[in-house]
């Protein structure tokens, strides 16, 4: 069953001569339990795709369905609630709150979403698997890029969302960590029936994926099934 679907979505920025068509008539679908990769060169439109799939912005045309609901015209408030509840973001950069410690990043989620978050044991296990359990009292700027990235992954998973959208989640990880994160995503998809959509240049993730799309100059095409 598809939990996220984009139908004929286009997105353009700017107007007139400055107009950029970042996405061109894209069709996309991800099922429960799938790890989907989106690959493509810089500037192809991958981040733009994620913002639209995650209801951070609206497409210029086309429709976005999340869990069978048409969310294309959600108000900002509805979109906030949708993200909080259904979508976990791992952003390309700068995605932790600088003045909260690792532990407090999770407490913040508890403050705004009272139910349905991971149990304490599950969180501890997750932090262990990601190798960051000894970092809980540190501020983001005290962490390396790779550690920040893993905290961001844990944070996205903490609210137990149905869909995870990640932009270059392995960019600053060494090979060993990439394997671990790849396995973690794969296990989550299979065991907890999540749809995991990863934008990446990282070919090392290919073997953990179920589907690979390629984004080229705003066009999206299925490369591997």
């Amino acid at each position, binding site marked *: 069953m598809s939990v996220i679907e984009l139908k004929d979505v286009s997105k353009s920025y700017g107007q007139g001569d400055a107009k950029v068509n970042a996405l061109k008539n894209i069709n996309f679908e991800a099922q429960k339990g799938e790890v989907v990769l989106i690959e493509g060169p810089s500037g192809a439109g991958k*981040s733009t795709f*994620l*913002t639209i799939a*995650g209801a*951070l*912005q609206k497409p210029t045309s086309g429709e976005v369905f999340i869990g069978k609901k048409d969310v294309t015209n959600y108000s*900002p*408030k509805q*979109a*906030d*609630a*949708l*993200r*909080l*509840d259904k*979508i976990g*973001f791992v*952003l*390309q950069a*700068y*995605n*932790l*709150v*600088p*003045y*909260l410690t690792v532990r*407090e990043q999770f*407490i*913040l*989620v508890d*403050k*705004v*979403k009272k139910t349905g978050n991971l149990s304490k044991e599950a969180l501890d296990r997750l932090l262990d698997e990601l190798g960051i359990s000894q970092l809980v009292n540190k*501020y983001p700027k005290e962490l390396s890029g790779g550690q920040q990235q893993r905290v961001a992954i844990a*944070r996205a998973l903490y*609210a137990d969302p149905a869909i995870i959208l990640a*932009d270059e989640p392995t960019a600053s990880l060494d090979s060993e960590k990439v394997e671990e994160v790849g396995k973690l995503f794969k296990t989550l998809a299979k065991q907890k029936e999540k749809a995991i959509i990863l934008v990446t240049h990282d070919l090392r993730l290919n073997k953990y994926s179920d589907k690979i799309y390629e984004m080229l100059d705003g066009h999206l095409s299925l490369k591997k099934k």
Partner: protein
Amino acid sequence: MFLALKEIKYEKLRYGLITLMIFLIAYLIFMLSSLSVGLASENTQAVNSWQTQAVVLNDNSNVSLSQSLLTKEDLKDFKKTKNDSYVGIVPIVMKEKKHQTISAQFIGLNKDEYIYKDLEVVSGRKAKHNDEIAVDQILWNRGYRLGDKVTLNGSDQKYKIVGFLKNAKINIAPIAYGTMATWKKLRPMAPNVEASGIISKKNLDFKAKNVRSYDKQTFVNKLPGYTAQNSTFELMIGFLFVISLIVIAVFLYILTIQKMPNYAVLRAQGIPSKTLIGATLSQSLILVIIGTVLAYLLMLLTVSVMPATVPIDFAPWIMISTIAGMILMGAIGGLIPIRSILKVDPSKAV
């Protein structure tokens, strides 16, 4: 609250500096207003201590006690009650070899009238005889002591200080209280003069040839320099207040604007704008409340260590309105960017 406190804790220096600024501004306003209230009260201290409600003066005195004289003839229709007190006033220069020469006001009273009865003695007693005076306690700070003999206005007659009194200042000058007979001697004039004016602690409405009553406010506003002084201070404090409130609002606005990139990240995570607005608002309020409360405490301390010669006085309503005004401005400063917070584009976080 959670976000607000965590951020303050993390950015101690930045928030500390802003609190310091709010603190200093609040302290400045408290200080200036207390000084101005102090000064104003030294103008009217005696008038207030007499519980003045109305004053009977000569028509041609331009509502000035010192310019007024009332004769028996003027007062033949005036029915004096126990709420009325005759007062004779005259400026004096008080001299004593060992001490500083003092410019003061002599006020003559009748011993059977209420002002005399109500005088508040700090040490010694009230003046009973014609060669005695009781003076404002400020003269004690200037070195005068009980039993000192002084001359008034350069005459040879010596007067003995028999008491120090509380709240005995008018127009910022200390008062020497004595008898009506002494007043008549110090202010040579036509016979039949009874007093400079009549002070009443009840409202009264009296009008006769050459004489009429005035209410307290009219009388006080006509004290020399009083109105000019007060309006100068009011303008000064008013401007200071408005400008500082704007400065505070602007600072808090800049503070909030600097947080927008973080807010984009939080919005992308699905944190509702309501939470972010709450954080901004409570942060502004925390800073302003800490700043003004500290300023208030320092103000209390300042007043307690200020030498008695500096006129300084609390006016609760000024303190309260300053604090309220600052909190309000803090809230406004934090809320001006509310539109920007609502419009934060979460896609900017990507």
